[in-house]
């Protein structure tokens, strides 16, 4: 009896102890963590987190450390909340597509530091690149579909001074696009492509610069060089086997896959020297015929991320199917290139001798994907299979560490669950902010309140200021974050309105006397003004068969005084920010009286902000079947 009560007391003691803990966190830690990520009402976050929305097609902006979602920047998919995809300008940018697959946002850089001008975002699905201007957090250009590029996944990686956005394709097809060949002839008929997208240094306007034709490997993630690796770029690949079916099996047979080491400055020069041939309007380099542009190095196994460290000397590939990251030494790469330390070639492209360029393989654990850096000599790798973040020491290693690289592995923190990408603030610059790491997890697997079968993705905020990493917060980031960029809030100062002088729309109207509805043949143009809490005019007359154009100007110049223009039963919702003019065209097909109204809550009399589109029957001045007024 006494024994039993002792056991019960013991169990009670354990349960009491664990009461104060959750997931190994003491009550004091919980308080400290809560305070670390707490941003009180009215206070502001210290960093922006720009994270990709994957197949939602959008970019999302959250604050760090609060991890609160603050705003959505629509890019590739319609977003009625801001009217994106309904007005002519955004529809034209979207080019007839209604979704995209955004993977890797990249902030523009000058001298390998964020310059706060633009954010670029790739579309894996439709081979496009978008530019968001950080002056207004809006998408200003969508380039593509890029010719000769299929599966624009290995992008968008900006060069040190945003000369280029570099892209590599995940898929291979018979080129140019539109050519048909049997997938069985994959090695012979199919090709992949590396593209250099030229960025105008003043306007940010992008255009396709040149491309490098490659064997049909599936290029995966990459990054651009800096410092000693200035002018170079790096990608992993996962199908050196050149399999065309059942890739899960057939592309994972070799222990190593070829990674691409691209000298983009040499490529640029070769194109300028006329060494390219044209395909679908783009200068294309054949790397077998233009030596010095492309090298391969075999890295294990089906590697995923390939990240250059802030010094530009170390390049780390995540092993994915091997329990180690591979560290390349760029100085050794350069030596191997100049001494021609090759291990043969693949279709005329030199293969660098692995032993000559590798610094070491760090046994971080299972499923290493991506690596980020804090600028203090430490690397952080996401582990998909082990579901954790591993902190480890970059070279130079001590002799003892070299003997057993397990000793370079310093800390692990569990994530929930299966982290894909991770981001350390400023990791891809030469001066990372460090401080915070965000792990973007692929599975939440019921960790949240039960929301049924369509389950969200989680992101977790980890404090990396100490020797040991500390998870302080998690949030359910909009699906599906792939990669993200972190920018210090104080580095940009976006406009909160569009100043009247900067509105160049020919149909903008600023005074109610300038508003009009005019007819030319069957074309009706309405120039409408929106201000709290009215539209001028609030009646537009037209008839069935007319081509109606409505341009609405929000003449407010006060921040957050946003007006919408929703037209009943016509699939139209435009939202105009202060000072903005937006336009839609429709062909009127049904007669009737259709109210339009302000959709974006503006003022106490928002509900009253409305008008009518009167569509009379074709060819008649009659107001309806009954005719005549009472």
């Amino acid at each position: 009896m006494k024994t039993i009560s002792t056991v019960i007391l013991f169990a009670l003691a354990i349960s009491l102890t664990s009461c104060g803990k959750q997931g190994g966190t003491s009550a004091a830690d919980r308080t400290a963590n809560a305070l670390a990520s707490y941003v009180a009402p009215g206070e502001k976050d210290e960093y922006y987190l720009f994270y990709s929305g994957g197949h939602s097609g959008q970019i999302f902006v959250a604050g760090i450390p609060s991890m609160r979602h603050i705003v959505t920047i629509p890019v590739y998919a319609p977003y009625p909340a801001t009217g994106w995809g309904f007005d002519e300008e955004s529809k034209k940018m979207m080019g007839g597509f209604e979704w995209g697959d955004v993977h890797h946002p990249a902030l523009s850089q000058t001298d390998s530091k964020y310059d706060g001008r633009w954010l670029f975002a790739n579309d894996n699905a439709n081979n496009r690149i978008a530019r968001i201007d950080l002056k207004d957090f809006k998408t200003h250009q969508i380039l593509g579909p890029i010719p000769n590029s299929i599966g624009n996944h290995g992008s968008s990686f900006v060069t040190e001074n945003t000369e280029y956005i570099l892209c590599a394709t995940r898929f291979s097809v018979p080129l140019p696009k539109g050519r048909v060949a049997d997938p069985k002839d994959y090695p012979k008929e199919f090709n992949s492509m590396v593209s250099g997208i030229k960025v105008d240094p003043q306007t940010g306007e992008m255009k396709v610069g040149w491309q490098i034709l490659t064997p049909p490997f599936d290029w995966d993630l990459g990054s651009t060089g800096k410092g000693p690796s200035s002018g170079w770029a790096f990608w992993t690949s996962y199908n050196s086997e050149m399999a065309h079916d059942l890739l899960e099996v057939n592309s994972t047979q070799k222990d190593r896959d070829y990674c691409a080491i691209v000298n983009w400055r040499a490529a640029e020069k070769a194109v300028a020297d006329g060494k390219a041939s044209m395909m679908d309007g783009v200068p294309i380099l054949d790397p077998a015929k233009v030596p010095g542009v492309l090298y391969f190095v075999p890295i294990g196994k089906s590697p995923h991320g390939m990240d250059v460290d802030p010094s530009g000397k170390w390049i780390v590939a995540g092993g994915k199917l091997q329990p180690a990251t591979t560290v390349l030494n760029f100085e050794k790469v350069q030596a191997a290139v100049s001494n021609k330390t090759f291990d043969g070639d693949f279709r005329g492209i030199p293969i660098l001798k692995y032993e000559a360029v590798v610094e070491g393989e760090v046994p971080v654990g299972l499923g290493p994907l991506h690596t980020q850096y804090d600028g203090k000599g430490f690397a952080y790798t996401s582990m998909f299979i082990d579901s954790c973040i591993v902190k480890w020491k970059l070279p130079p290693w001590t002799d003892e560490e070299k003997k057993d690289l397990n000793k370079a592995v310093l800390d692990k923190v569990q994530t929930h669950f299966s982290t894909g990408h991770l981001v350390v603030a400023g990791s891809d610059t030469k001066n990372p902010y460090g401080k915070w790491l965000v792990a973007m997890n692929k599975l939440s697997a019921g960790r949240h309140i039960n929301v049924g079968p369509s389950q969200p993705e989680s992101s977790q905020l980890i404090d990396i200021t100490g020797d040991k990493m500390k998870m302080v917060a998690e949030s359910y980031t909009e699906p599906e974050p792939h990669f993200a960029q972190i920018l210090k809030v104080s580095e940009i100062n976006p406009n909160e309105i569009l100043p009247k002088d900067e509105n160049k729309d020919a149909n903008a109207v600023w005074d109610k006397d300038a508003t009009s509805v005019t007819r030319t043949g069957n074309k009706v143009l309405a120039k409408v003004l929106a201000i709290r809490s009215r539209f001028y005019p609030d009646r537009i007359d037209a008839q069935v068969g007319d081509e109606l154009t409505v341009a609405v100007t929000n003449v407010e110049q006060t921040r957050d005084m946003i007006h919408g223009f929703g037209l009943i039963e016509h699939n139209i919702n435009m939202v105009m920010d202060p000072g903005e003019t937006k336009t839609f065209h429709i062909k009127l097909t049904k007669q009737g009286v259709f109210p339009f109204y302000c959709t974006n809550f503006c003022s106490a009399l928002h509900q009253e902000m409305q008008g009518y589109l009167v569509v009379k029957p074709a060819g008649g001045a009659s107001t309806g079947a009954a005719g005549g007024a009472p």
Partner: protein
Amino acid sequence: MQKWVANLLRREFKFLHKPLNASSRLFLLAAALFIAVSLFFPLWKMHLVAPQYSDGLDLFIFPYKIQGGGFNGQHLAEINNLNHYIGMKPLQQADFLEMIWMPFVFGFIILLLLRSIVFGAMSNVIDLFAIYTYFGLFSIGSFWYRLYQYGHNLDPKAPVHIQPFTPQLVGVKQIANFREFSYPQLGAYLLCVSVLLIVLAGWLSRKEQPA
């Protein structure tokens, strides 16, 4: 009795004929400068704060213009836009006759000051003081009347009906969801100092003897 009155008048007469010494004239010159400089600074500021406008909306009143605070003077348009809900007439510079005659009167006073410096008689200073004080009080009265008019001539068809009111001239007042703070600004202070300089100019020559 008669003699007493006659003496007083003689003393008054003598006082008015006192010459102004160099210090007095210097003070008058300073007063003229202060008035000239005040033209370039706001006389008054009205600051309106509401929950949605936590940074506040500003209205600056200059001798020759009204100007809103914020980017491109946007606060004026914003205040007018808000006022339309209660049916208040929009504040437009063209409606303010004061903005034409005030700079003119400033110039006139400066001319009178220069005249006093040249003629150098106490009587000039007294004239100046009287005219200037009258002008100052009239302006403040006219400003108050403007405020009264704007707050009382409200459009009866306005969507929001509120009790007619007079915005605060000096101090703080709650008007619907707004808290109004109204205070004189640098221009007004410069003008006050110029009055003080004129009084001091007279004081400094009080013991001078008529020639």
